[in-house]
């Protein structure tokens, strides 16, 4: 089976089994599929793009080495194995609070499998934020910049956590749609 056929048709279990059998094209395919997922996990837990990308590299190396060495007992659950590895390595990274856990990258080119970090035009962002109600701006700001919980925000705004979540969902969707409009513009 060619690498193209792997990309189109193979299940993740099949890809994992092929990696275990020494198929280099399957390794590339496995990285292509899981690199974006690990990056999102890294952004959620490590907060920074660079640290998230470092995590991708570390996780995929561990996963590939485990598959090559026949140490993955359930290739049909390779997604769970990758998630577990991401959890372990991100916990270590947070505990160390630096990047000393980085593994040697070898010839693994994970960056080609990750989306480019799309910088949003600051002017467009301000324009979209300006279009939000002041209370909605405040909730987004406190949620994603000050990292306050819905409960903490509710206390400051004298409302309920449930209401904060509803307003946050609406404001976020409005902001996202506005930014999408700017990207699609001339």
């Amino acid at each position, binding site marked *: 089976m060619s690498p193209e056929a792997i990309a189109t048709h193979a299940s993740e279990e099949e890809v994992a089994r092929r990696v275990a059998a020494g198929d280099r094209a399957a390794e590339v395919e496995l990285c292509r599929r899981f690199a974006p*997922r690990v990056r999102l*996990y890294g952004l959620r837990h490590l907060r920074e*793009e660079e640290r998230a990308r470092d995590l991708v590299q570390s996780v995929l190396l561990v996963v590939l080495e485990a598959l090559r060495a026949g140490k993955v007992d359930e290739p049909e659950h390779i997604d769970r194995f990758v998630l577990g590895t991401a959890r372990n390595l991100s916990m270590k990274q947070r505990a160390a609070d630096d990047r000393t856990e980085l593994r040697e990258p070898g010839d693994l080119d994970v960056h080609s499998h990750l989306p480019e970090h799309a*910088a949003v035009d600051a002017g467009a962002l301000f324009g979209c934020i*300006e279009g939000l109600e002041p209370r909605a701006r405040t909730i987004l*700001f406190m949620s*994603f910049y000050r990292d306050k*919980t819905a409960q903490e925000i509710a206390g400051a705004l004298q409302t309920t956590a449930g209401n904060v979540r509803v307003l946050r969902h609406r404001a976020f969707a409005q902001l996202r749609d506005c930014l999408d409009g700017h990207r699609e513009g001339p």
Partner: protein
Amino acid sequence: MSAPAGEHLPLELLIDYFADDVEPAQLDAIEGHLFACTSCTAEAERVVQVVASLRALPPVGITRAQIAALQARGVRVREADFAAEVRKVAEFTPGDDVLIHHLSGLDLAHAERVHVTVKVESSGATLVEDHFAPFDRERGAVSIACQRHFDRFPPDVLFEVRVYGPGREPALSRYLVPHVFGR
């Protein structure tokens, strides 16, 4: 809120996930789903782009360390002190990327929380609020980062600073700072 078995994660749940506002049991379920679902990964990527954009903004209330970090990145920063109830113009010159307004003379010795409201003086409209603004207890100041993109807003800016401490009503200080954006 959770995703029914076999269905995709709703946008609202992804927003709560990246706002770090889900229960531990939900967290496991969301991440398990994300690692197995290409479609939800793509949707989560869109959420992350917006979150990253918000986090990349220089904050309204800013700390000394954040000012130093901006300068280290090559951002051209100019700082000035402002006193309560004294009208003082803040002028953006072509050489400025960010102006830092130090709203000074505050009694922050026992402050637990500082709430900054940025308003339009003439209309009273609220532009933005920071209910948890960082503050410099020793200097008795709150620092505000003013960016060139703020020229979208009316220039007659009023900062209201409320200092919350134990067992007392918040103390209010007003800073009148008309802005001029030079090109």
